[in-house]
């Protein structure tokens, strides 16, 4: 386990918050304060941030068919897509209409890797012959071909 003291918590939070486009100073300082009380390790920090964002985003979730996890995944994907689809950002989600959410879902579906269709490639058998018997086999075939019944 990597202890949280190895990092500068403020830097980490700032970076994390920035990466989620939460760049208001008030939010960052509130996060810092909260985190110093509640979080004991790096893992916990990441989980905490995820949960925090999830609770924040719940309030703006319009599409009830999405589970919380799906919604968070969607937001993450939109974040990744940010560079690809300049018109979406975390701020767009905050004021998202249902239409926009549908668009976001579409964007996610395009971004997602193709679903797997698992199949098995059966291993082919390659039986190595004795070269002499192979030669005899071809000789036999040749004779059959030349003199055998048509």
């Amino acid at each position, binding site marked *: 386990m990597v202890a949280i003291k190895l990092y500068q918590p403020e*830097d980490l939070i700032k970076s994390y918050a920035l990466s989620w486009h939460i760049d208001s100073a008030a939010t960052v300082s509130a996060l810092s304060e909260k985190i110093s009380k509640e979080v004991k390790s790096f893992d916990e920090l990441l989980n905490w941030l995820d949960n925090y964002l999830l609770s924040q985003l719940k309030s703006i979730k319009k599409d009830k068919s999405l589970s919380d996890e799906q919604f968070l995944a969607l937001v993450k994907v939109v974040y990744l897509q940010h560079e690809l689809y300049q018109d979406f950002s975390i701020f767009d989600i905050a004021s998202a209409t249902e239409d926009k959410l549908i668009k976001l879902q579409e964007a996610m579906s395009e971004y997602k890797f193709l679903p797997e269709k698992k199949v098995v490639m059966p291993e082919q058998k*390659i039986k190595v012959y004795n070269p002499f018997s192979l030669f005899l086999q071809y000789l036999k075939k040749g004779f059959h071909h030349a003199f055998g019944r048509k």
Partner: protein
Amino acid sequence: MPLAASNEVFAVPLLSRRRVKFRRIKLFGLTLLTTLWASVKWSEFMPTDISLFMHWFLLILFFLTFGWISLYFWSAVFGFWELVRKSRYEGIKYPAKDAELNAKTAILVPSYNEDAAAVMARVLAMAEDLGKYSEGKQFDFFILSDSTNPEIWLQEEVMWFETKKQFPQGINLYYRHRPRNTARKSGNIEDFCTRWGSNYKYMLVLDADSLIVGKTMIQMAKLMEVNPTTGIIQAPPQIVNAQSFFARLHQFSGKVYGRIVMAGQAYWQAWDSNYWGHNAIIRVQAFIDSCGLPVFKGKAPFGGHILSHDFVEAALIRRAGWLAWMLPELEGSYEECPPSMLDFASRDRRWCQGNLQHIRILISSKIHPVSRVHFMVGIMSYLSSLLWCLLLLLGVGIVVWRYFFPPAYFTQSKELFPSWPIFNVWGTIALFVLSMVMLFFPKILGILYVIGKGGKQYGGAGKLWQGFFVENLFSALSAPVMMLFQSKFIVEILSGMDSGWKTQNRTAGTSWQDGIRMHWWQTAVGIGASVLIYNYAHTLFYWMLPITLGMMLAIPLSVLSSRVWGKKSKQRIFTIPEEVHEPDILQSSKRHFKQLEQFIADKDMLTLLKNDIYVSAHIYLLAINGPMPDFGSDLIKRVQHKVSSLSGGGDENLSLDEKRYLLYDEKLLQGYAVLCK
């Protein structure tokens, strides 16, 4: 199920089974007759004072080496005849001009520690070209990375991320990095087939240096559609983008002579053609059902995973009843050539091992006879060097032996007439001249064919003949060097040395230091042989000079030929049409390379990790790649300790393996990324 097992498939009006059989009888019959005639003559011309064992041994060596060039000669003659007579290869059914394409094709780009920007620039150029056609939407690209270098792995992901932004609408670009590169390229393709292959009807397999124009890719997919019993269609790749003298020489030979050779192969192979591992379209289901490669018992080089998988896959797909075609008229299919003799030899080392491993399959059950011929040809491509080497050694050895042990002219006492050892010098010279004619004639046919088609794009007839003479001079001098290389490879392989899997160099030349380090022994053999022949087999000295001279000049030949000579112009030797009027796809791939390279040029992993979006993209892709390989607890602890010791600003004090682990540990990586800033 393939229909090929029934007679239905062979009811193609233009090419009957009988005609193909007759073609094979003609080609192999003429090869055999020519070889037998020459061998009988050689048997008559050989010195009479050698032992019976030596006589037969020399005869067998001669039969095999002469048979090899005879097959090449007759194949080229028939190829030339086909090219002159027809514009299209007959036998396969061609799609109508307005035929629609409704089947999906995956374009697979396997990559192993390659230049990520160059690979992705080629992919983008192909996608853009496909995007010009409505059928382009039926294609998706998959970058299948087997890269083991973490720096390159991250660069590939960055390139994927940046390229995706520019990709034409409707064409997808996917990236997958394989945690363990089991079974190398064949394992990489198999992994795709078992995970995503069933989403596609066809897959177009490329190499990292491959380029195919959109029109040709669409044509290949349409050909598969109208030929439902076809398993593979191979588009012969043409060498392009050559810069060094060595690569341009090969580019010229491939362009001028290659077409004749390809046409010759297509002529007799018909639907039993081979697969060269790239620039070919494959029916996915047929491949899944019939091409799961076995792992041979024992260790490499002969045991273990199959190294040169392409020939084996072609044989297996053919064994299952699917047809395999090679169509020389499929143009716009490109590849690149190693820039130097050393890189060429390094690739040969791998191919040599792969082909020798095929000996096991050559004598396996239920393999189609023509597939056996493909294996035989592959094996002979390397074995012929050793045979030629043995032939030369024995020839020189006999003359040297005679110097030290002169023949006994009178074996009995009171003999009236001496018993003269007879050696028909002029007959032997005639056979030598015949061999040379058989080697050069197909090349002359290639030049004549190109001149017949105009030849202006090659700088005119004068430049073509100039190219022919220089190419032959260089080939003659470098052939003994390659012969020694390949003979050494065979000896290494037979003694159990594995080639490993090295990344192919595609650009850099050879330094004098490397030239000396790699070729000193060939130079020494050349000097030693010259001294020996001059002193003890003087009659052979001038005859052997082209061979010994090539060996002695190995270092300058190798180093200087890896350099770029002369400026790009139509008047330069070895000019090909693609250099005069560079195809759009080549131009756009170069343009994209310049643009994409900026994202990763001079940026190490540390620098790239400073960009949040790249870190996020990497973490997103981890879920697709599959489970992390086992790094061992020691390494994991070491990385954790090193990362925890960082004081900020990051540190490059991580080994490649440690960096690789770091890229797998999502949380540690996020922390590292923060500290990198």
